[in-house]
């Protein structure tokens, strides 16, 4: 009897060790990646790197300023396109839970989230690049916006769901019209959740390359015009990584470091937003 119990307790301990071990093992790649990024990238980081334009192959120096700016512009364009629609759809889904339309849309939003980014790149190429006759930051923004939509819709919907009906009812009973209730009472109350969704969406698309391959296209110069091709950090990393030039590999490491810095900052920002602005009921 005792031996059986002993074996079971042993199994129990081993199981716990296994679980803890594997859980932390799975985070190892994170440390490896960060380690390599820092080790290989930090030597290229300099003022010049961040603020200069790329130089032709073989020449020393040059930077990635156009890619950094390009990434920000793409973020702006896709946010501009996706936030209004995303927030509105999220509110609709939250307010009309029982309608058939809601169920269909909810299912489609999940599906949209699963569409491979390369397919969205094809779509943006066919819808924007071809008719316009040129590659542009706008087309890249469209592809990225479609990717951001499901994230924003879901988080807005969940945020509004969490806000108690009583708040809405109180506002309506005071005679505040429906639209003002939402714009001036509900949304501000759920601001942290909505902002979190937006920040998460942004950090997702900041690192996307595939949809930009045949839309934003790339540009060795600084470009602020959304109707022209534009460079972006992920695209630059892709180009430099597959090149045979060691100087470019170096730059790719450093650019990856910058990219991850941006993405992690956005993640931390969204956590802070929740902490400071979350309205508790």
């Amino acid at each position, binding site marked *: 009897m005792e031996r059986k119990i002993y074996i079971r307790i042993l199994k129990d301990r081993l199981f716990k060790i296994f679980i803890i071990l594997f859980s932390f093992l799975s985070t190892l790649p994170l440390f490896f990646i960060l380690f390599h990024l820092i080790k290989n990238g930090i030597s290229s980081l300099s003022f010049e790197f961040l603020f200069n334009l790329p130089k032709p*192959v073989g020449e020393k120096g040059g930077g990635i300023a156009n890619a950094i700016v390009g990434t920000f512009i793409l973020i702006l364009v896709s946010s501009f396109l996706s936030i209004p629609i995303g927030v509105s759809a999220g509110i609709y889904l939250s307010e009309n839970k029982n309608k058939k339309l809601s169920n269909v849309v909810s299912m489609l939003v999940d599906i949209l989230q699963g569409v491979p980014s390369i397919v969205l790149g094809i779509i943006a190429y066919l819808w924007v690049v071809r008719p316009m006759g040129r590659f542009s930051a706008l087309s890249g923004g469209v592809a990225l916006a479609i990717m951001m939509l499901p994230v924003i819709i879901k988080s807005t919907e969940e945020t509004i769901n969490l806000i108690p009906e009583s708040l809405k009812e109180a506002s309506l009973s005071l005679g505040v019209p429906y639209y003002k209730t939402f714009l001036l009472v509900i949304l501000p109350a759920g601001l942290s959740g909505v902002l979190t969704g937006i920040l998460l969406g942004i950090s997702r698309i900041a690192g996307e390359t595939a949809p930009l391959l045949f839309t934003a296209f790339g540009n060795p*110069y600084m470009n*602020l015009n*959304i109707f022209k091709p534009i460079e972006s950090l992920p695209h630059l990393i892709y180009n430099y990584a597959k*090149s045979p*030039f060691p100087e470019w590999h170096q730059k790719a490491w450093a650019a990856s470091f910058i990219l991850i810095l941006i993405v992690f900052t956005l993640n931390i920002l969204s956590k802070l937003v929740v902490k400071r602005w979350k309205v508790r009921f």
Partner: protein
Amino acid sequence: MKGRKRYRWKAKLSEKMKRLLAKVGMGLMLFLPFVAMAEEIELLGAGATFPYPLYTKMFDVYYKTTGVKVNYQSIGSGGGQRQLINRTVDFGGSDAFMKDEQLKEAPGEILHIPICLGAVVPTYNLPGNPKLKFTPEILSGIFLGKINKWNDEKISKINPDVDLPDMAIIVVHRSDGSGTTFIWTDYLSKISNEWKEKVGAGTSVNWPAGIGGKGNEGVAGLVRQIPGSIGYVELIYAIQNNLPTGLVMNKSGKFVEPSIETVSYSANVQLPDDMRISITDTESKDGYPISGFTWILVYKEQNYGGRKKERAEALVKLLWWMTHEGQKYTKPLHYAPLPPLSVEKAEKLIRSITYNGKPLLK
């Protein structure tokens, strides 16, 4: 309305107006920089990876001297052709001239302006970096997957003083549509009937063996990293990466080292007016047998899709510069400049580019 109410209404209205104007003003301010930038001419090209180092140098100099920006993305010759047909770029770059069927698909007549010459060289990764000689049979055998060991007797017979290891041959080819591939497979089709039947020549082919790298860059990168591998790249990529290049036996039986000179020799043949010619397996005695032109593809009639005349003029000026002043940047980067006869043909072609039927260059 009664006095006081009217006053309040007017006040509210002006408040609303002010807010609206403020919003519109802000919106305009955001868009002004975008609009202002629209007037600067920026030419967009895409295509061949082979001339990419040369083009980035040329366009950098061109920008510094003329202020015209040229944005060239190296997506492969196939991409250059496709995007030109789709009219999403001002010009395409290609190491493969477009076939008749492809030209028929295009919405307008396309001109092939030669810019420079290059060599496609076999490059490999073997211990000690020996200098190897290749015959046409060896090359086609390797790429067909029939010769798979480095110490195969076919290779050792031609290279008696090299200690060839007992290693597997790993073929590296292009994964993307490529003019470099076109030149290479065009050569293989000419010297091997089996290759011609089984695989054929093209910018993208159904490779019997090997792994794919993206762009000249990708292939060079893979060869650099995989021991026992062999790939084909433009000469500049091999040199820039300190990769060994093999000598290839040409039609006259000479083992020729790929270099600027031997590439230029290979162009000493009859050239057609439209410059759509393959010079692989050249008749020229001292020519390197796997050479080719790289072209810039443009539409002959530049008034399409709402293009403005200034844009077409900028393009034509760029082409003229590239075939004249720009040629001095070729040799330092290991590209062969256009021989005089080719420049003549290029000039004729550039002069024939029109806008609304009128030639743009006087």
